[in-house]
């Protein structure tokens, strides 16, 4: 008999199983939304391209950098906490949450710009999906900020691992959503 038996498939999975169930569920929801967006585009590719030209790509690209960097800080926080560097971990989590706020501010400016142009979800099917997908994602950013601040307060390593995993899911959804909605001409 082996002294070190191989871990089971579930034991191999890092972090909390329920968090992974949530991550997969969210990916399926957003994945279905993105696929539906491109499926509806089939009926009016020119209209979708024209509608997309009203979006601010540079602002959204900057937001990608903001979220990627925020995710990096959340991942570093877990690393530092496992090394018992509690202060560094807490500061990294608060900084990650602050970048989440930056993301929301830029998103708010983007929505305000659309409103000033008279663009609503009824303007074109493109904008219905735009508001639905980016709005639902922004809602997750708000939840993620609260979770990051909560685990910065209750900073047990397991808590930080779960909080950071939620934040990485928000990051993961954005890196798929951004190119489909903003970049695919």
């Amino acid at each position: 008999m082996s002294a070190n038996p191989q871990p089971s498939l579930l034991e191999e999975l890092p972090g909390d199983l329920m968090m992974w169930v949530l991550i997969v569920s969210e990916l399926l929801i957003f994945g279905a939304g993105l696929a539906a967006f491109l499926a509806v585009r089939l009926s009016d590719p020119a209209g979708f391209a024209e509608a997309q030209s009203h979006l601010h790509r540079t602002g959204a690209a900057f937001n990608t950098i903001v979220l990627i960097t925020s995710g990096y800080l959340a991942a570093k926080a877990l690393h530092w906490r496992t090394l018992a560097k509690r202060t560094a971990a807490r500061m990294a989590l608060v900084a990650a949450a602050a970048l989440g706020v930056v993301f929301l501010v830029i998103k708010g400016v983007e929505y305000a710009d659309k409103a000033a142009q008279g663009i609503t979800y009824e303007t074109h099917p493109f904008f219905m999906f735009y508001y639905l997908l980016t709005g639902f994602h922004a809602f997750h950013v708000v939840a993620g900020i609260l979770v990051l601040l909560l685990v910065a307060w209750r900073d047990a390593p397991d808590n930080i691992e779960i909080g950071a995993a939620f934040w990485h899911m928000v990051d993961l959804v954005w890196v798929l959503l951004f190119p489909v909605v903003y970049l695919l001409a």
Partner: protein
Amino acid sequence: MMKPDTLTRAWIALIVFSALSMVAAGLVNNGFDQRLTGSLVLALALLKARVILSRYLGLADAPSWRRGFNLALTLFCLILLGLYLFPQI
């Protein structure tokens, strides 16, 4: 010079892939084929998602799960690519 750690390398890779996505998307304005640039943008999105799963979410230490997620993500991106390219065929 100190070598950056795995997480920092992942962050740098994500920044580079994001910059390349913007460049690829902008090539349409320079007369490049939309099908090519669109494929590039989706391929870079897939790469970014793989880095986040492997490094940020730690699936690099769970190869079976990483293979499963990578397969599902690749299939998903192929579906998106098919839907994107269909009107241009």
